[in-house]
């Protein structure tokens, strides 16, 4: 689940819990508030009555021992009664009690208080019907509930907006720093703008990690480059020595054959070293991309170079590439080697009398070249590893490769931002699809 969703979900749930709790508590709270309010009101009424009794005298209310009583005639919401109290004990209470008023039993909240005037005890009762008290409860409850709900929705919305805003740098860090990163990185470090220090920390940490990876890559490339350079001179010396010895007349054919063997092995060493050097030079971006390359012409040159190999296995090679399209910003030498190696593989892993088809097409501004062979194919387990250096899976029909052909292809393709897709079915053949990043230009 996304962090943003989680935060929103948590916020919503926690707020809902609070709302539910509050709604559950609301009746109790409101009842309490009402009761306090009513009690205060009753006390005020009581004080008023007592003041009147004091100023006007008790006789005004009680004549000939008859109690005073007053209530709202119709609805019996409130009543006041003043009477002679027979009991002697002190009463001052507020209680819910039932009273019978004109034949109706009504639940009242009743303040009862007795007091003395002269030697006589009097009892004062002031009541308010419970129904009246509760009348306000429901609307109050509703208003409170509505306001609360509105506020909760508002905060959830605000939370949502804010969390989206605050989490945006995280998405940006992942998008720009982590997804689809290729090494060596060609773009310089660009800080992701954020006011959240945690994200800043993350950004800086990722950047540090990238630097470490970069420098490791750099070291590896430098090592390969230096190692292959250092090997060049000794190989050169050995090669010259063998050549000079081979040219001598006074050695036997037997020695010559052994020299030949040495030369073959030295050649193998030389090829490996040169290839590694080439790969490291490509990876160190030591090549320019300033050529305009006509793919059809280039394939023609590769064909000339490679035709002897086609002839030897009697392989038919069909090239259908638009003749008038040029690719800008390319390196001809490298592209030549890319196609040479791909076609060479298509020959090497092909059967006698097999076929190779090379189709080029420029559709929707996308230039693709598809090389299909009828060879032995690549098994699905091997397919993800074919571009790895020194990996040899299928023993070729003549065992004379050292597994750097496709790594060269990959390096050159990466250098030109060419995407390669490989499809293969063992026994049926393989298809290498090259997607060129640049739109070809029509040759004038």
């Amino acid at each position, binding site marked *: 689940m996304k962090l943003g969703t989680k935060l929103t979900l948590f916020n919503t749930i926690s707020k809902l819990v609070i709302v539910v709790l509050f709604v559950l508590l609301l009746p109790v709270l409101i009842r309490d508030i009402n009761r306090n309010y009513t009690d205060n009101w009753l006390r005020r009424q009581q004080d008023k009555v007592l003041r009147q009794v004091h100023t006007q005298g008790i006789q005004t209310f009680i004549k000939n021992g008859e109690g005073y009583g007053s209530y709202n005639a119709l609805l019996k919401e409130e009543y006041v009664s003043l009477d002679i109290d027979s009991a002697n004990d002190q009463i001052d209470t507020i209680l819910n009690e039932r009273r019978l008023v004109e034949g109706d039993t009504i639940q009242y909240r009743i303040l009862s208080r007795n007091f003395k005037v002269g030697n006589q005890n009097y009892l004062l009762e002031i009541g308010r019907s419970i129904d009246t008290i509760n009348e306000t409860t429901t609307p109050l409850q509703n208003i409170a509930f509505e306001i609360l709900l509105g506020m909760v929705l508002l905060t959830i919305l605000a939370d949502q907006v804010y969390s989206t805003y605050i989490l945006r740098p995280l998405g940006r860090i992942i998008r720009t720093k982590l997804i689809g990163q290729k090494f060596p990185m060609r773009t310089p470090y660009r800080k992701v703008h954020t006011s959240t220090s945690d994200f800043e920390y993350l950004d800086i940490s990722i950047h540090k990690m990238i630097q470490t990876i970069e420098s490791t890559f750099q070291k590896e490339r430098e090592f390969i480059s230096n190692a292959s*350079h*250092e090997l*060049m*001179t000794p*190989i*050169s*010396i050995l*090669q*010259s*020595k063998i*050549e*000079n010895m*081979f*040219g001598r007349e006074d050695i036997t*054919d037997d020695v*010559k*054959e052994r020299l*030949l063997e040495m*030369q*073959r092995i030295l*050649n*193998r060493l*030389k*090829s*490996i070293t*040169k*290839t590694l*050097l*080439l790969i490291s*030079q490509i990876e160190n971006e*030591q*090549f*320019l991309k300033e050529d305009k390359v006509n793919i059809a012409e280039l394939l023609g040159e590769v064909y*000339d*170079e490679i035709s*002897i*190999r086609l*002839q*030897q296995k009697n392989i038919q090679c069909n090239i259908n590439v638009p003749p008038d399209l040029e690719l800008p910003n390319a390196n001809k*030498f490298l592209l*030549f*080697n890319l196609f*040479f*190696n791909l076609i*060479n593989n298509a020959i*090497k892993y092909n059967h006698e009398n097999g076929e190779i088809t090379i189709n080029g097409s420029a559709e929707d501004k996308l230039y693709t070249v598809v090389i299909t062979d009828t060879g032995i194919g690549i098994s699905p387990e091997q397919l993800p590893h074919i571009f790895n250096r020194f990996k040899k899976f299928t023993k070729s029909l003549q065992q*004379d*490769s*050292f*597994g*750097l*052909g496709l790594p*060269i292809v990959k390096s050159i393709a990466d250098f030109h931002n060419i995407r390669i897709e490989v499809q293969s079915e063992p026994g049926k053949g393989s298809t290498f699809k090259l997607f060129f990043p640049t739109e070809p230009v029509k040759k004038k």
Partner: protein
Amino acid sequence: MNVLIVEDEKALTTEMELFLSGNSYLCEVCYNGATASEKIATNLYDFILIDLGLPDYDGLDLLKEAKKYNPEAACIILTARAEVDDRIKGLDLGADDYLPKPFSLLELQSRMQAITRRKFGLKNSVVPLGEFNIDLTNRAILYRETVVSAITKKEFDLVAYMLLHKNRTLTRSQLSEHIWGSVVNDDYDSNYIDAHIKNIRKKLNVYASPDWLETVRGLGYRVNVNN
């Protein structure tokens, strides 16, 4: 022809000297830039072979000096540091060729020969070979006055290379290196040379027997010229 070899790797200079002397070049050897600089300023050479990776001198500076004091000399840069821009810089500074290490001595001689032909205008660039004539300037094989048009560029390259190193057995690796040297691929032992030779023989046989092209059993091929 006078050749100055500037190379700090003694084992390599020994072989270069041996080989070039055997092909009638007069060689002088310098193991460092300082001596080379002196020699360039005082003597005249036809060829100056400069290693870019000298311990005491920037090979490119030496190239500049050579161009100044020995403007007629052909300069070939030899280097193990096959940096791409070194090559461009070297050729910009007037080097006539650029040979990255490890190079074959046969290739070195072939390059020198090509420069000689280009630069010093070798008069007789049509060489008779059996009943054929090899036109090195126009890169064609002629039978009497007719061009053998079936011969491809690669096939001509092979014949010309063997002709240059006549009476010497060239191995398949040496021939491969010459014609496929610039291609980087992962084959190290190919027998495509045999196919090429077969084609050359077939194409020439239409006119006359190319009996000068000999297969040296187990070793390679050679072009025999008796004179």
